[in-house]
């Protein structure tokens, strides 16, 4: 596969992913609005409450000792505050991933036009690192409050933290690359 084909594939994939994320945001918002209008529709929709990857700690409780957890952890019984917090959290996660893909696409486009070592790409990698840091923070804590039950969980998202480090390291590598390019350009 040539460099140009690879870049074209990466750019196309980024565009497809961006579209999927926009659709996900719209879909998620539609469910959020519909859930407030008709809660009974979501009666059988049960939560699979788990924390993220990496090291995690979680705690769940219910007021009715005889009830099963999957009976109390249903979407229609989710408290309004918890619903809003969950919606905003997932919306934030989706937007952050969308922004990461956008920055990645910008980098690929600059490589395609052979402007690889530019200040823009350093900024893009830094922004990706910041967005991923936001993603790591948002996904590290999970909290749901139901009418007669609750769930709390905290985890260390190792994958996201590793990606944050990778993004910042890439920014430093590209910064070094700019200096080398400048030196090369000014060598006659």
């Amino acid at each position: 596969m040539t460099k140009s084909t690879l870049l074209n594939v990466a750019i196309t994939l980024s565009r497809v992913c961006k579209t999927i994320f926009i659709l996900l945001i719209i879909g998620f918002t539609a469910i959020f609005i519909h859930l407030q209008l008709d809660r009974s529709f979501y009666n059988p929709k049960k939560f699979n409450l788990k924390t993220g990857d990496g090291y995690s700690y979680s705690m769940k409780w219910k007021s009715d000792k005889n009830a099963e957890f999957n009976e109390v952890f249903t979407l229609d019984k989710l408290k309004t505050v918890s619903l809003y917090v969950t919606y905003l959290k997932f919306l934030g996660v989706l937007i952050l991933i969308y922004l990461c893909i956008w920055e990645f696409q910008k980098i690929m486009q600059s490589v395609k036009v052979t402007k690889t070592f530019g200040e823009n790409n350093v900024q893009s990698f830094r922004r990706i690192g910041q967005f991923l840091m936001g993603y790591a923070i948002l996904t590290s804590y999970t909290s749901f409050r139901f009418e007669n039950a609750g769930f709390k969980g905290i985890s260390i998202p190792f994958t996201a933290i590793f990606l944050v480090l990778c993004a910042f390291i890439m920014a430093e590598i590209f910064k070094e690359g700019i200096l080398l390019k400048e030196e090369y350009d000014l060598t006659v």
Partner: protein
Amino acid sequence: MMLAKRDMKSKELAEIIGITEANLSILKSGKAKAVRFSTLEAICKALNCQPADILEYVED
């Protein structure tokens, strides 16, 4: 200065030593960070001079 002595234009020299006029301009203005030995050799050959004739140390 050496160019003027030899009555040679920048364009002509750039063609002889095989670099672009833009690069020659970088050299003349002192913006260059490094000069290849091959370039220096070509300039000296074209102007029939020694490196010391075209290089000068100026304190920043």
